[in-house]
């Protein structure tokens, strides 16, 4: 039996292990920074959608002409946006950070 036949398997497993460790380290370090940036961007987008399409939530905004021009780009996100804007929130929603 060739003693080197199992080498590819070992190297594959080692690669997987290193990848896993890398992902865990990413989760513990940079992920939160990336997530905060995503949150920031999404919040601004939601704010913009609210200003332009606020009538969809019952906010008394008369839709301007540009609303129609923007509509095709906003349609895919409307369901998620409405849910996010109307979701009930309280202080426990903020508890996703390291405090203990």
């Amino acid at each position: 039996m060739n003693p080197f036949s199992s080498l590819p398997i070992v190297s594959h497993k080692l690669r997987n292990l290193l990848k896993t460790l890398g992902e865990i380290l990413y989760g513990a370090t940079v992920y939160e920074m990336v997530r905060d940036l995503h949150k920031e961007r999404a919040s601004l987008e939601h704010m913009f959608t609210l200003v332009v399409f606020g009538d969809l939530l019952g906010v008394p905004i008369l839709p301007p002409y540009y609303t129609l021009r923007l509509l095709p780009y906003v349609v895919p996100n409307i369901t998620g946006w409405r849910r996010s804007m109307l979701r009930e929130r309280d202080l426990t929603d903020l508890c996703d950070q390291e405090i203990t």
Partner: protein
Amino acid sequence: MNAVITLIIGFLGIAVGYGVYARSIDKNIMQPDDKKATPAKMYMDGVDFTPANRNVLFGYQFKSIAALGPIVGPIVAVRWGWLPALLWIIVGTFFIGWVQDYSSIMLGVREDGQSFGALSYRLVSPRARTILLTFIYFYLLLIMGAFGKIVGYDLMSNPAVPIGVLLVILIGLLAGQMTYKWKMDIILTSLVTVVLAFVGIWIGTLSGVQSLLTAINGSPDTTVFGSVTWAQFFWSLVVLVICYFGAVLPIWRWAQPINYVAFWIVFLGILGGTIGLLIWHPAFPADFPAFTNWNGDLCAATDCSGVEKTVGAMGPLWPLLFVTIACGAISGWHSLVSSSGTARQLEKESDALYVGGGAMFLEMFLAVLSLLTAVVGVGVTRGFAGYVSLVAAGKNAGVFAVGLSEMMSHIGIPVSFGLPYGSVFLTLMALTIMYLVVRFMRVASAEFLGDSIPLFKNTTFGTLVALALSALFIWTGFWARIWILFGGANQLMASLALLLVTLWLKSNGKKYLWTLIPFAFMFVTTIYALLLTAYKVLSTLSGLPVDKFVGNILAGVIAIYLVAAALILGWDAFKAFRRPGAEAKVEA
């Protein structure tokens, strides 16, 4: 007993707990189904609901739950001896800790990612949500008191520490500038800032710098008011100023990059300490008792005649040990992180056990390591008497720094550097949490009081009020009592989390004893601990200096409030449990 054997016992606890008990609960009771869409996929909005890879989420969950709690708790609990502390860490995690974290994630996932506030309202009673919010607020205040005392009184008063801490903070700001403004590569940024941080810690150890700080600290007999010395007052004030900036500046400018650099200091310290311990593999010192006595009275267990300050008894092992070690065995904050953060990012239901349970078992390992810093790190080099004198001097954090430096010395890091490194490590760990707490308290006060007193919506005013309340807790009272109250508020939140899961399991026709029994145990234990603390602080008021007097009154009032709120919660839970469905009947 050998330190490595203790680590092996810890690993066995993880293997059996995670591999057998947790898997069996996951498979037979919760029955995760990967075909079901999780809230992260169903409601993806890029803000709260975003699916993430399981390994990434594991790292995120671990970082979110593991901070100062699992490090300081075990060191304090050694007052009852190392064996009760070790047993509670392992057994508590095995039967309660992972149960709470994992089931909170599953509850969040199965209930559309709802937060615990909304779930308390629906499953227990409308006022349960209000009680939960007050638990959280007191918990935050007590964190500020407990951590503020550790940093301001213990760590920063050491002349070798402050310059290292302040330089690391400046280097953290540089990391933010490099990442967000100069758009530099994150690996290069990490390398440059971490190396600079090490240099910063080294600068703090230089004798000239230490002489300057010794002069600033002044005489240890100079008191500002009550028993608060000038050094304690000054460094606590510096801590509060740091917290102010952390709370009002944009998160990317201050909190985030400093936390990032601090993470590497902490991570490398834990890694170095673990490797050093494995190389060293010392036996437990013969004079370090496995069990001291029921009351955790160190002076009854050893001769305290050589100790400068008196060290009082902690109180009965049950219930106080079980709130002294909160994080590391079970912590209520984890359930909030799990439900509000992790449950909304879970890609598949089957990832919940790996992320929630796995991270909790890893935290258990951190708590065991921390216990070993006291028992072998300090015990082997300075003996049990060394531990007692550090505790008597109020240097619980100092115990960890001494222990870690001894462990790291076995990988070639000199104790002269390892000791301040361990102190900076702990200070940063506490500070990175404290400014997030102040930030949180500011938002909480705006939410609670903003409508009736609009001034609370002002960022600066809200922050200053939070800092003033924090200062009150830092500059008054006894640290050990504040720590017990902090653990008590935390464990009451844990009880509520376990209660919510029990009610949810019952309403879904699933077996619930595996959460009901831990709930009952934690609920009764915590209430008893809080009652004992209230009695102790209010019955010993006479003859105290003004700061201790005020602190004891504050601690007593908070303990009584927490007990009363918990009893109301218990009554509502009893009524909810007896309902045919578990949903609370909410008046329209």
